């Protein structure tokens, strides 16, 4: 009996390997290993660290697409908000640490920073849902996808220029979160910040996955994504769920912004690059497919790292764009497919 189950399990694995998703995942892993063997371990490390944070941004984008049906153009701006908050919270902490190097803040400071970014990100999400998207939803649901897309375009312009107006256009960055020597792994020196950023993204993805799969609220969110009317009928409070989803996705982007502050200093239009990346990922993985976005994020990160490594920096817009165009032509529903396509066709 156990053997039979085992056999069936193997059959499923083989079947998955022969599907498009399996082929791409295996090809990605192989290419990553080959490139690592060719040029050294830092390719793998770079891919994993960039991929982890891209996954957070892309997951948030996939969530807004899947649940609220909003093709978010302002998602990079929540990333920017996260990094801005992190800068203003962490700068006093780090100057305090300079005078008191042994205080407990050395350990907890970065975590407090990320927490503050999460809170502000959630507030920003709630504000934009209540004052912008809910207003449109109340008035007209006709041609919703396109109209809400234009709203997010306006939102993005407002947030970028509010940053410039109130905080100035200069680069606001920090040198490091955690001091200490870099970690040596496979003859590659990884700075502590990068290692912890990756751990942070793994933990957040894990918690998020658990939340979406096993909690009542997470199930309600998925129910709304599948069928709004059906969710209403079984007594799910739609407005609350939509608001929660919006703030969740903004929190994810804000965590990524705060976690990467040591790499990308905060400035008004910094959100565009994570936005492009997140859109690449979401289209690659299939619109609204939240877990596919995690896998897709690593693929896009690998593609970007390889482009920079083999073709040269600056081409990392051209090559992924070309690939995404090819994917959109031949497989508009993405590699991992998605269930929300019918809604987005409108």
């Amino acid at each position: 009996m156990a053997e039979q189950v085992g056999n069936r399990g193997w059959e499923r694995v083989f079947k998955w390997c022969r599907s498009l998703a399996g082929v791409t995942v295996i090809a990605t892993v192989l290419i990553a290993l080959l490139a690592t063997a060719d040029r050294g371990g830092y390719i793998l490390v770079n891919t994993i660290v960039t991929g982890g944070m891209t996954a957070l941004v892309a997951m948030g984008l996939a969530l807004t697409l899947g649940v609220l049906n909003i093709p978010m153009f302002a998602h990079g701006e929540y990333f920017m908000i996260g990094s801005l908050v992190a800068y203003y919270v962490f700068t006093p902490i780090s100057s305090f640490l300079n005078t008191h190097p042994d205080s407990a803040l050395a350990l907890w400071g970065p975590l407090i920073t990320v927490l503050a970014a999460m809170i502000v990100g959630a507030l920003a999400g709630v504000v934009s849902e209540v004052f912008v998207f809910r207003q449109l939803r109340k008035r007209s649901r006709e041609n919703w996808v396109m109209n809400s897309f234009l709203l997010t375009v306006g939102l993005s312009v407002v947030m970028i220029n509010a940053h410039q107006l109130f905080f100035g256009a200069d680069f606001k960055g920090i040198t490091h979160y955690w001091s200490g020597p870099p970690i040596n792994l496979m003859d590659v020196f990884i700075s502590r910040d990068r290692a912890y950023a990756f751990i942070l993204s793994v933990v957040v993805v894990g918690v998020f996955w658990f939340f979406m799969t096993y909690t009542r609220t997470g199930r309600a969110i998925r129910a709304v994504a599948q069928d709004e009317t059906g969710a209403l009928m079984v007594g799910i409070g739609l407005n609350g769920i939509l608001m929660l989803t919006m703030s969740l996705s903004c929190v994810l982007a804000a965590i990524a912004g705060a976690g990467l502050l040591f790499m990308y200093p905060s400035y008004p239009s910094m959100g565009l690059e994570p936005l492009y990346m997140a859109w690449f990922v979401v289209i690659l993985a299939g619109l609204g497919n939240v877990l596919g976005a995690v896998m897709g994020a690593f693929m896009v990160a690998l593609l970007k790292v390889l482009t920079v490594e083999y073709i040269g920096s600056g081409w990392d817009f051209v090559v992924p764009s070309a690939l995404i165009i090819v994917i959109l032509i031949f497989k508009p529903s993405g590699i991992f497919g998605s269930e929300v396509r019918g809604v987005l066709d409108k």
Partner: protein
Amino acid sequence: MNHTTPSANPIDRLLDSLCLTPAGLLSLVALAVLPLVPPFNHEYLIRWLISAAFIASLSIAFDFTAGLINIVNFGYCAIMGVGGYTSAILAERIGLTPWIGMLAGGLVAALLGLIIGMITLRLRGIFAACLAWFFGLAAMGLATKMVWLTRGPLGMRVNRLFDTASNVPYYYLLLGMMVVTYVICKWVTRTRMGVAFKAIGQNMEAARTSGINPVFYRVSNFVLSCALAGWLGGFYAHYYGILTPDIMLTSKTVEVLAVAYIGGRGSLWGGAAVAFPFIFAMELVRSSLSNLPGLNLLLYGLLLILVMIYYPGGFAAFFDATFRKYKNRVMNYFFNGAYESPR
């Protein structure tokens, strides 16, 4: 578009073939006189007028795709930039006169429009917008990296169209180009094609069922709108005299998009009407409150959000609802012309 009894008056017939109402003609005349009137005859105010007219022309051609077949061409300014680069490179390498170069820019842009139209055929709404966006990103990346051809971010020097330091001839040329853009777009919407565009924009399945071939109409719409963008891009290159990949940025497209939607989607003239007061207000805010950088664009974004939520029809819908309803015969003639009956 209700062509009722043909009027004997030749002026009416001429106006109608130019797709203008008496009110439209009057505002065009006002725009033409503007650079001669004292507050506006300063060179820097004429420069504002030129940038307003440029945004206005782009928004007309942009609305031709966005308003009629309901697909936002999010890489619009990238295509405009490709037209500009084509014209500039032709002028620099083989010494082609800018006048033909601008048309060549339009031709290359039309080719790009053909490609985008073909590859977005299977896609709808937001997918097509994304694809056009990535296309524009790729074009901008190429313009930045092909330094041997475009000199990349350093900027490419382009010879100017006229030999004067004055901006006035450029303004009149651009005003003419704006009218040509408007008339071409409006003419097309008056034919069978325009009806087909609207049908596709409203409901593609229904349009297909009633025998409209979406392939042909969507592609031809993209080709025309992109060709006009490339032509205008040629003007941009030969007016400013320097070309950097910055003109292909997504934020430039957003600027055009905001004007087109605040002006009123699907109206074509709405964006042009809004662009002039709008760009002037923005420039005024920027120059008078220069200690608050970004305030003008912040207002821009807020206005776009407010219009999208509370008045999705934009300025054109407001105009139709208030001014075009006059029962008075003279006023009706003034706002609607002799042919178009009030809606």
